[in-house]
């Protein structure tokens, strides 16, 4: 290994250059993609990984993609082996059980070559408007297996050494509903990767190969130091919090997520023991998504000044019980894991941290994207249309200020679709976009407010699917703060004025999760998100601040009296605080909050039947290979710069989520035939030697 001394200033300059490379990947994507989800929603992420597939830098787009994306890169390297990734190759993958999140999040990956050597991977993950499966534009709230959720793509090469393999794209586009737009989006992803490779090559040309390579390592070490420092500041100990998912769309629930944190020195073990068993419906979170969500929560709490990369992951270890809803066994459906369950994992980590470092965390956030998807025939424009709305809301209050109103939840960060873009491109009319009065959880610092968005359908017989949560059990307050208001999804039929929940109107199992509902012309739907939980006792909030909120219409006078104990009255045409009435209201004791008991939840369960058999076989395979070969001697493990790259059997946690069949297949293809067919002489395959 080259041990060039890296000038510390150059290291910082290059670290920022990696970040700006990712930002440029994003702008290339925005400028060349087609769909609203990509371009206006910015539901994508870009990153540069090093040659070990470890995250080096990423751009300010979508946190949930980012953390899981790193695992996808590792998987691709395990699957293909770095030596099989040639200059000009482009790989596509979306499998949630291979480090992915859910099927519409499709990764495009291109090795970065400079001066003939592979420096790393350019990777982006974008949310495609459709990925096949049972519902238009995805989010089948009632899916019972991943097969109903869409097409599952293992790592496949779209380009080989710079030459397109159009059949690969044809196969994918044959299985999605909006091939023209989605091809444009794939091209945006491609342009983004090419941009990254070019920028990194520019850096190599200016500064040399070794300094760039070393700066990638230093960038990660820098973040690791910062994260370890941050974790050292948490008092050692064990902390726990339980958060809840309403239901699984099929009538089961509530589900619980138990987050245990064991903090010791500058490291932490995150233990999900006690979490409910995997769900029948699509609220499971893949291993990659679960791990990514935890990284995300730590970054939110400690890391706003820590560059987000693999280094910041190193101090955090995991126990995610196999067969739980946070590490399900395929073919369990996982569509809602990315947008719903992940928020709950993050709020759960916040909740546990609140015991240890109450001044650092926020109360619970609005906790759902709602995820309304659907489509139909757009008569006006003479084409099929697809729509996917995901919604912002209020964040929890913190020790130092009220929560933010109307921003994306912590799993995401995006721009909304302007009403003028929605109406221009789809048969929908925007009726109202407004702040939800009284949605914020009361507290000394209240939560932020949620948003209400009302749309009118201007086409006949549109399909309508939803996959939300936090409709029943609202986001938690902390340190004496109250819960925020829950979300809802309503419809108003053409010619009527009354709002109805979808489950009432259509006789569904869940108000927040359904598939294949039909809405007609001039029917309206109302997407309403809740507010964040409050921080601290609302009865201690200064009456003047409550008055301001009432004047601005954020809190009603009734709510000011009930929740804050502040009497607001009108005097000479302006609103004022009635101090004596306020004193009276505030002298009354507040009612205790009712809580769910453990017995109310779907219990934790050990896998059985087919799932148990798969786990047993996978475990046996891993044990077999590991007992046969130490990682240093394993012929299937790779090596770069004297550093061993693990095969799936020696990877520290690949065995946590690889299926037995995939392991067997991999072993067979890579010459580890002893594992399935008894002992034979292991050796690398021909392509490896050729490379």
């Amino acid at each position, binding site marked *: 290994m080259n041990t060039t001394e890296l000038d510390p*200033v150059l290291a*910082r*300059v290059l670290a*920022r250059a990696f970040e*700006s*490379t990712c*930002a*440029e990947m994003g702008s*290339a994507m*925005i*400028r*060349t*993609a*087609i769909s*609203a989800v990509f*371009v*206006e929603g*910015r539901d994508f992420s870009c990153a540069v990984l090093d040659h070990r597939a470890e995250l080096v830098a990423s751009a*300010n*787009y979508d946190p949930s993609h*980012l953390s899981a994306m790193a695992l996808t890169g590792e998987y691709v390297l395990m699957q293909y082996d770095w030596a099989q990734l040639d200059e000009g190759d482009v790989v596509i993958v979306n499998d949630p059980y291979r480090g992915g999140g859910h099927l519409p999040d499709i990764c495009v990956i291109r090795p970065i070559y400079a001066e003939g050597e592979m420096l790393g991977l350019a990777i982006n993950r974008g949310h495609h408007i459709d990925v096949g499966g049972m519902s238009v534009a995805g989010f089948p709230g009632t899916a019972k297996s991943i097969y109903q959720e869409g097409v599952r793509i293992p790592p496949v090469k779209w380009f080989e050494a710079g030459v397109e393999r159009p059949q690969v794209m044809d196969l994918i586009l044959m299985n999605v509903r909006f091939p023209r*737009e989605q091809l*444009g989006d794939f091209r945006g992803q491609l342009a983004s990767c*090419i*941009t990254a490779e*070019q920028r990194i090559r*520019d850096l190599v040309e*200016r500064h040399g190969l070794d300094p760039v390579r070393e700066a990638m390592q230093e960038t990660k070490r820098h973040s690791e130091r910062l994260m370890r420092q941050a974790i050292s500041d948490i008092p050692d100990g064990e902390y726990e919090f339980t958060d809840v998912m309403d239901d699984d769309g099929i009538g089961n629930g509530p589900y619980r997520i138990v987050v245990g944190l064991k903090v010791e020195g500058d490291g932490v073990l995150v233990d999900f023991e006690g979490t409910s068993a995997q769900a029948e419906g699509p609220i499971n979170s893949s291993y990659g998504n679960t791990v990514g969500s935890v990284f995300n929560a730590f*970054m*939110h709490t400690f*890391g*706003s*000044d820590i560059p*987000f990369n693999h280094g910041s992951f190193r101090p955090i270890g995991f126990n995610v019980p196999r067969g739980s809803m946070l590490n399900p066994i395929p073919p369990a459906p996982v569509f809602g894991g990315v947008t719903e369950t992940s928020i709950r994992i993050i709020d759960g980590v916040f909740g546990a941290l609140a015991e240890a470092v109450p001044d650092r965390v926020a109360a619970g956030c609005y906790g759902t994207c709602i995820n309304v998807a659907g489509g139909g025939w757009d008569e006006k424009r003479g084409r099929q249309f697809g729509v996917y709305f995901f919604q*912002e809301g209020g964040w929890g209050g*913190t020790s130092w*200020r009220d929560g933010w109103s*109307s*921003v*994306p939840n912590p799993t995401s*960060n*995006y*721009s*909304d679709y*302007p009403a*003028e*873009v929605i*109406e*221009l491109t789809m048969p929908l*009319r*925007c009726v*109202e*976009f*407004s*702040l939800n009065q009284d949605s914020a959880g009361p507290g000394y610092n209240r939560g932020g407010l949620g*948003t209400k968005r*009302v749309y009118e359908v201007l086409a006949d017989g549109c399909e309508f699917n939803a996959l939300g949560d936090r409709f029943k059990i609202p986001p938690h307050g902390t340190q004496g703060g109250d819960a925020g208001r829950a979300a809802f999804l309503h419809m108003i039929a053409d010619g009527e004025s009354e709002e109805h929940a979808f489950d009432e109107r259509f006789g569904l199992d869940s108000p927040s999760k359904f598939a294949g509902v039909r809405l007609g012309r001039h029917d309206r739907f109302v997407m309403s998100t809740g507010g964040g939980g409050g921080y601290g006792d609302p009865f201690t909030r200064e009456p003047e601040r409550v008055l301001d909120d009432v004047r*601005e*219409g*954020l809190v009603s006078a009734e709510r000011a009296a009930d929740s804050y104990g502040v009497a607001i009255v009108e005097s000479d045409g302006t609103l004022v605080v009635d101090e004596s009435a306020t004193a009276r209201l505030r002298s009354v004791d507040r009612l205790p909050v009712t809580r769910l008991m453990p017995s109310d939840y779907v219990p934790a369960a050990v896998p059985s039947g087919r799932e148990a058999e798969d786990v047993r076989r996978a475990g046996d395979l891993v044990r077999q290979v590991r007992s046969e070969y130490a990682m240093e001697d394993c012929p299937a493990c790779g090596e770069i710069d004297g550093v061993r790259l693990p095969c799936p059997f020696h990877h520290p946690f690949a065995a946590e989520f690889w299926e037995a069949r995939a392991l067997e297949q991999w072993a067979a293809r890579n010459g580890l035939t002893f594992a399935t067919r008894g002992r034979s002489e292991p050796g690398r395959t021909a392509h490896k030697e050729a490379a």
Partner: protein
Amino acid sequence: MSNIVGVDVGGTFTDVYYFGDDGGINSAKSPSTADTVTGVLAALDQVGGAAGVDSLSFGSTIATNALVQRRLAKTGLLTTAGFRDVLDIRRLWRRDLFGHKWDRPEAVIPRHLRLEARGRVDFEGVEFEPLSEDDVRAAAAAFREQGVEAVAVTFLFGYVNPVHERRAAEILAEEMPDARIMISSEVNPERNEYERTSTTAIAAGLAPVIDSALEAVERQLIDGGLTNPPRVMKSNGGVMSVRAARNKPVELIKSGPAGGASAGVWLSEKLGEPRLILIDIGGTTADASLIVDGRPIRANVDMLEWDIPVRVPVVDIRSVGAGGGSIAHLDAAGGLEVGPQSAGAEPGPVAYGKGGTDPTVTDAAIISGLLDPDYVLAGSFALDVEGAERSLGPISDALGEGVEKTAAAIMHVATNEMANLIREITIDAGLDPREFALVAFGGAGPLFVGSLLEELGLSRGYVPVGAATLSAMGGAFADVAFDYVRSESGVIGESGSEAIEPAFVELIAKAEAEIEAEGLDRAEITTALDMRYLGQWHEIEIEFEPGGDLEAAAAAFEAEHQRLWGHIRPEEPIEFTAVRARVVSRVRKPELAVGSEAQADPQAKGRRTVSFFGREPGEVPVFERAALPVGFSQSGPVIVEEAQTTTVVPDGFRIRIGELGEMVVER
């Protein structure tokens, strides 16, 4: 007579640059005044007054300061029923990917002043619900009651069909005759309701502030004998008349700093430095911009704060609230902070003795010895040094340091604010700041040149002649320039392209009328199309002459798409989405003949004790700039004083006087 004058109205000082027709330059400086015009006239008087001046261009931070400090007119918003919260919801996204630290900026207009009216047109401009005039009148009554001075009117799809906006404006004008009414279809006729609403709201909030200031400036200058109407520096780097500026208040955003960029282009050429970081440090803010390959970096939108956009063509200048008048204070946790609050021109720094009580960067510079209290503004008024020292007392007590060290720490914090800004615009764009040279200007710029070079690891910087008033000089180098855009769409080779020609005719007519109204007779008009692949969301601007070949434009688009994004899409149709026209009328530029009162062997005129941050206090020689000849060199620490600014260079650097009289600061 054909004398040219450039003026820069900053937050603290008004600077004047006078170019005689003999090539001579004269400059002056006077404190800015709240009414703008008094300060302009006072500065102008120092160089002979307005009489006989042929052409005068001025940049003004009126708009920028009003926005940074949120001192806008009391403004109401009237918008489509159901959409008043667009200004709160914005485009949603958080500044930071992770973390709760960020304080989301307040909405430009508070919720109780955002009112709604029923009435809708669809995306094709067809009305499907008539405008409720009752709602408009009710809103007007509510605005009147609240004492609203300006109203922004933004209705959904107002840019496609402005009929409701125009009618609402008529009613509002009847009901509120004293209020300024701005409608989105005139201010920013572009898609996306939030950006358009934000831009219009800011235009409305600025209009009354700008009206009163500019109207007086124009009248009094003309009364004072100015031959032609004055021009105002625009955000796009050009200039326009006061008449035009009052109609387009948002184009005054960054008017002052844009002059600096214009001067930067000139310096880049003269110094043979294709890459320059321009840092303009005035009373209220430090403004940084870049010259790359001799051209300023431009943008089409200016973000006032995170997700608070103004859509206007701008020279890409970023600001941080750290200038000479910025107030040093302690945050809740006892941390030392500088800005963004500023004492401005009035009351100004404590040492100015005009009633200021909060310690500013200028006060810190005096106490730490960087500035000579007897020399500031060439001794035009006596400074209250004791007052300045007293004002540092609370911070000094909290830090447990003497006032000199406290003052040096304030200078260091201010330097860091500026250095971070420069890192943001270079490193975040993948540019290595060390490949740039620094040009430090504005009244306080030269004060920071040494510490910034040190902090950023740059090898050299420049303090040009007249550094304190460089932005004013830039105004004299800028051309009259207007940009026009109109949404117009069609697919190349299919329908819609017939609409291009009438659209160009309309824009060109507008441009010609504007140029005529400006009193100019010659101008170059360039035209362009925004093009993209069908359904793409972002366009590439392609030059296109009316009557030209659309297929050729499509080919040019594909070539540019290939260059920018590395691929083309042969099977996709190409569409255009907007037609653009830009009109530029070249103004006569001054010629510079740099004179010199230099001495053959200049000696330090004195020495004083200076506290640099992180170093022990020491004696530093002080030179008079006018005495330094071309080729003069002196190693740091050294201080060079001139009438309007002071250059401070620590040890480790040396100064050298270059051929243009510029001071080079190098390692």
